């Protein structure tokens, strides 16, 4: 059963594209373009998500500023009303460095509890859900991305995209670096941690690095850090392989407009929306999906919805 859920259905032969009379806009009796644009201004999930993201990050800031024991620490490691939470890649790096030095025995019980709790929590919520619902850098990048899109549209810059497997090179690379240099190297470059700390403990010179990465994303490659580098995101995407919370796609409601792929941070996860690509009537997005809900908002036919896999009958 679990194995069935893991299968994406990508290797099966694709279904035939729907004929014109089965397209959603013909059923509604409106023009195709009108149908595509019918939900262009809907931002329900985006607004909910931004509110949640800002709220959680503000909780960090407020907890420090007013000395409240609600959500202390930063995204690298924190305490939620006394319960420890650890950043998983940070924890992996600590484990990597400490495995060769014997430091591993000194790690506290809070470290292990924090790591387990956070892994379980985000596993149920979908792994990379962390990126779009929690990460402050994602929020910055999501908004500067519009600038990038504008420049591309005006043909001022060219879009550069890379192989999605690149992040595994970085993931292993940073772990190997941690072992070789005996330092938590990634934490020095981690724009997520830097942004989080800058918000909570006050800004510093290091913010120039964050601005630099953002600029690179604007002028060279769309969402370069999030898509190809960030090992935190990669860790979450590994965690989310079997996550129950995901996005469900119904072929019958799809109009092949691919608007959802345009707004998606990880368009390869929506491979099945293209005309003649889907192999099943229903598809689920995989572990790279950040569950941001942008595709849900934009879809003219409401073909995409949040769902909890394996609970379809109950819900």
């Amino acid at each position: 059963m679990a194995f069935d859920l893991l299968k994406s259905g990508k290797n099966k032969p694709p279904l035939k594209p729907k004929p014109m009379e089965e397209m959603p806009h013909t059923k509604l009796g409106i023009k195709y373009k009108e149908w595509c644009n019918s939900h262009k201004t809907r931002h329900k999930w985006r607004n909910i998500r931004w509110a949640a993201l800002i709220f959680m990050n503000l909780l960090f800031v407020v907890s420090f500023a007013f000395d409240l024991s609600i959500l202390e620490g930063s995204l690298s490691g924190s305490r939620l009303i006394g319960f420890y939470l650890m950043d998983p890649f940070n924890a992996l790096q600590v484990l990597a460095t400490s495995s060769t030095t014997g430091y591993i025995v000194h790690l506290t019980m809070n470290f292990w509890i924090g790591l387990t709790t956070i892994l379980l929590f985000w596993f149920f919520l979908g792994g990379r859900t962390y990126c779009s619902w929690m990460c402050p850098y994602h929020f910055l990048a999501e908004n500067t991305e519009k600038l990038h899109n504008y420049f591309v549209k005006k043909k001022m810059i060219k879009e550069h995209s890379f192989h999605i497997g690149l992040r595994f090179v970085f993931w292993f690379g940073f772990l190997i670096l941690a072992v070789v240099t005996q330092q938590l190297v990634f934490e020095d470059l981690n724009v997520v941690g830097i942004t989080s700390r800058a918000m909570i403990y006050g800004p510093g010179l290091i913010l120039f690095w964050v601005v630099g990465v953002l600029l690179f994303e604007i002028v060279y490659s769309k969402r370069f850090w999030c898509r190809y580098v960030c090992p935190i995101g990669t860790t979450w995407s590994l965690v989310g392989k079997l996550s129950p919370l995901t996005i469900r796609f119904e072929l019958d409601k799809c109009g092949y407009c691919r608007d959802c792929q345009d707004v998606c941070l990880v368009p390869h996860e929506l491979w099945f929306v293209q005309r003649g690509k889907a192999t099943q009537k229903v598809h689920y997005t995989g572990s790279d999906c950040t569950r941001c809900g942008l595709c849900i908002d934009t879809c003219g036919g409401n073909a995409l919805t949040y769902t909890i896999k394996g609970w379809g009958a109950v819900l």
Partner: protein
Amino acid sequence: MAKKQIGRREFLISGGVAVGALAVVGVGVKYLDISHTGKQLRQDFLRPPGAINEIEFMYGCIKCGLCVQICPVQAIKLAGAHEGLSYGTPYIDVREQACDFSCDAMQCVETCPSAVLNFIPFKEAGLAAVEKATAGVVNLRNSDINPFEVQKVAMKETVRMGKAHVIKDTCLAHQRKGFKGISRGKDFEGIYRAPDSKVAWATPLKDKEFDREICNLCVTECPIGEKAIVFEPRKRDGKMRPRVLEGCTGCGVCVMVCPTEKPSIVVEPVKS
């Protein structure tokens, strides 16, 4: 098939660039690490209580800032980017705000999830002290021993962040000068609870007025007391002057209260 090959080629190229970039980062970090080692041995940083040795500290500290948050007097700060690899790690600037043991029981150490601030020595010292104090006591309730207090004092005294030493050239006591007034001026923001640890709250230094015939603020304000620093006459000429003893924890309250423009007593971080 052709498409797949292009994909693989792209991956190999970008992967190669990525590996190269990582190697550059690695070499850079290693270089900073080596060029930093001299600095490390000088130990510019006074780490929070219970810090393990500097080199291990660097690979254990995850820069979460929980110790910064829990400190009731906000003595702990995170280092900025100009500190190189130490970016984001905690330190105490005792001249601005010393660790005055306001929390009583090493909260920064207890809260540290990666144990670079190691609680075990404190726990052991506290338990040992309680055991020693209560040895032979039949009924703890009827005795006037408060095991909690005993434990707190023992834990405090176990701290070794560094050791203070007096700079004789500028020290007022060494020049037989007294001190009258507010020691660091009206705008100084530092607070402390010492020397009486039974006071509930830390109070601002600027609210305290001193009047000493011979300046001995570092001695009277020390939260540890006579185990750490004493005011005694020098054998040679009977001049009264402060003398730091082995019990000094390096908390830095003496540095914070020192009224001279440049502190006449400084804390040398403990060498690992």
